[in-house]
């Protein structure tokens, strides 16, 4: 099964590429396998009246709430021989959830193809500057696992800016200055919040770098779940102002530990293809996203926002169907996310649920520099 999925993820065409219904077939087979290999998931599916024998359409595959990763073990059984354990963050109260994978092959297949297309469409081999910790310092973070993989497999070398939980800005300065001096473009990769902090520090100290053309950045996370409000246009303006990276070379990523696949903006790809960037994030062809009316849970028409349920073929050892609390809209294979209510506006003498959430998120955010 895993080899079939890897082959599909590596080979399915980006545009209009699933004529034979291969996605549906693989999704249903994965689902049936998961009902057995992940007993909690199988019990849930049967409880919802959608067990392995009852489901005929991939859309009927019961989606697990992202919060269930925290309350239950939703990874395929293993005897302690998992290769990685990722901690999930930020959907509901209780302890962080866990994603245990015996094999990271699927995850890496999805990541490599998707990242290369959206960050390295010119197949450049760049030096990476990672605004985050090396994997050895963040063993349970899927994000820093991803950065590590990108650095190893797709880059000419890498430097990590966070060490011992502390950002080492002077290290970033050094690497960026070297890039300028040697006229060697770089790839920056990190969380929006950490970039934001670096830009604020650069503004305070009057530091700027005119990075050579071809330099690019991937930022992830936005300011979701934090009290900092960062507008997208401000992020882009800061990349241009401080690093001379134009908005066409800044790619935002949306992902979660509960999914093996990520979603990227197509800004850089559009530049390569000499067309306008399309709004939103690209849904890779091995992922389907359903947009549901949050009141009725019925599918919403194209372009109308609703709650997002993702079906990801890169999820084999964890359920492939994930119900999120994210709200967005879909048009063809693109996804636009709706902003959350600004945290500062959510005041009141009630709402402890939000408060608990916020505290939980902060805790996670602090663990993840």
């Amino acid at each position: 099964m895993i080899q079939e999925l890897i082959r599909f993820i590596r080979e399915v065409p980006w545009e209009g590429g699933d004529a034979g219904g291969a996605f549906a077939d693989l999704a249903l087979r994965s689902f049936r396998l998961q009902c057995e290999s992940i007993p909690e998931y199988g019990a849930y599916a049967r409880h919802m009246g959608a067990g392995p024998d009852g489901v005929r359409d991939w859309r009927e595959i019961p989606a697990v709430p992202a919060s269930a990763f925290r309350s239950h073990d939703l990874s395929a059984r293993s005897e302690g021989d998992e290769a990685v354990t990722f901690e999930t963050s930020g959907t509901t109260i209780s302890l962080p959830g866990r994603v245990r994978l015996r094999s990271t092959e699927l995850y890496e297949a999805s990541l490599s193809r998707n990242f290369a297309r959206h960050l390295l469409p010119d197949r450049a081999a760049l030096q990476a500057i990672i605004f985050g910790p090396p994997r050895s310092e963040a063993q349970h973070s899927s994000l820093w696992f991803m950065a590590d993989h990108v650095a190893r497999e797709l880059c000419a070398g890498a430097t990590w800016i966070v060490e011992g939980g502390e950002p080492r800005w002077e290290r970033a300065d050094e690497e960026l200055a070297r890039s300028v001096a040697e006229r060697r473009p770089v790839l920056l990769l990190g969380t929006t919040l950490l970039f934001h902090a670096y830009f604020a520090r650069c503004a305070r100290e009057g530091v700027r770098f005119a990075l050579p053309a071809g330099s690019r950045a991937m930022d992830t996370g936005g300011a979701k779940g934090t009290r900092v409000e960062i507008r997208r246009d401000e992020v882009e303006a800061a990349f241009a102002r401080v690093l001379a990276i134009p908005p066409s070379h800044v790619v935002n990523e949306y992902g979660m530990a509960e999914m093996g696949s990520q979603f990227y903006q197509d800004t850089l790809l559009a530049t390569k293809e000499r067309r306008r960037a399309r709004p939103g994030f690209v849904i890779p062809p091995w992922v389907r996203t359903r947009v549901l009316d949050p009141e009725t849970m019925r599918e919403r028409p194209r372009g109308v926002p609703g709650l997002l349920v993702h079906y990801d073929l890169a999820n084999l050892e964890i359920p492939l169907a994930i119900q999120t609390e994210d709200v967005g809209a879909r048009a063809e294979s693109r996804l636009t996310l709706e902003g959350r209510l600004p945290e500062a506006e959510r005041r009141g003498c009630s709402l402890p649920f939000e408060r608990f959430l916020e505290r939980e998120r902060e805790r996670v955010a602090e663990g993840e520099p």
Partner: protein
Amino acid sequence: MTQGLFDAFYLPPGVAEEAETSVQRFGPAHDSVELRLATVTPAAIGRWIDALRAARAERLARRPAAEIHRALERVAQRFLDPGSAPRRSAMAWLQRMGQFSAPMIERALEDTFRPLASGGVSRWVASEVGSVAALDAPARDRRGIPRRATGPEWMLQIYAGNVPGLPVWPLYSALAMKTALLAKTSSMEPVLAPLLARTIAGEDPDLAACMAVVWWKGGSTELDRAAVRDAPAVLAFGGEHAIASIAREAYPDARMVLHGPKVSVAYVSRASLTRAGLGGVAARAAYDVALYDQQGCLSPHAIYVERGGDVGPAAFAAALGQALEELRDGLPRRVLEAEHAARVQLYRAQAHFEAALESRGTRVLTSSQSTDWTLVYEDGARFEPTPAYRTVRVHAVSGAEEVADALAPAARYIEAIGVEAKGSERGKLAGTFASTGIPRIAALGSLQRPALTGTHGGVHRILPFLHWSTVDLGATAAKTRRPPPKGRKRS
């Protein structure tokens, strides 16, 4: 009624003329409301505070308290009159803000203003201060000691917008103790407080000269600081971060009452679970859950139901579901933003997960084809706040001790417990719950109607801000006013 622009601020004459204003949009993009706001700057805040202090000295400090209270009572009466301009304006603009349905706003205005009308302000003040006269001159307290109560020169009040009517009692409390007021409204509900201020101005210009009601974006550090820095007293409602930042910025000697986020719960005894009584109990519980869509700190998120009655907790849960269903039309919920509805759906899915996998007998009851109400039933007491908007947990329990133990770790987040019980068990249950430190124990069905003379967050509404001058001149104490005798004895 909602034609044209609404002035979502009130500044007294003298400073109003020089204030700059701008028009801003509030609410969701597809249905936003345009409101005119005063432009707030640190310098403007400073000027307003000076003007308020001067106005208080000239026009408020030496007025008899009873006269002030009568003016405030007349204003309350106007908001109770369905035909009056302020009442109609309040209804229209609160509806326009889209937070609550019309029947809920009606209820809120009634429950907020009724206790203040017809001598209500004086009774309230007397219940906390001892006597109204003590605000004018030393008056003998219950032990015969002459004391005078003085409110702070001015105070800062920061409102939340989670329940309609929230600003009214705080605003009244300031004027009732002759304190000038700078009030900051919430972006969720910036209309009632300025409307109330304008109505007071129409009734009693001297009172209104001592208050300013404006909005600025919470977390605007410079503005927050300018308002809080020198405030001799602060009353604030808000999230934990907002509250913490106010506490940090405030003057060390300031009298502060800060209301952070809280929720409530309810308890139903087995004796009250009879076949005949079930419908009524369920209706009272449903009303407490539905009113203000669980946005208030008095909204129950969990209902603990004793096993062993004529009807069991599961039957109560079913009846509660039915009662919530009836309120879909009777007391409609507001239309939810997608992200709130998505959170309710995620909560439901999580509950289904628990139902599938755990042995607590979890059952999930929901409104069909909507998020209008959600009920999660399970065995055993525990406390977990829900995402609100009529999402409630029902727990089957063995008794009050089990509930008190479950609530203990979260006690500081619980504002009230609604109790349904019969006869002598009421007192016993009240005793058990009072020992957990929960500030309010109320009858089920009236959780959201706190007494004006009661407490909020366990503290009084006026008393914490007063300071006292006690006359201690021995037996030859000078002339002091005595409180009017209670019930004249025949001589």
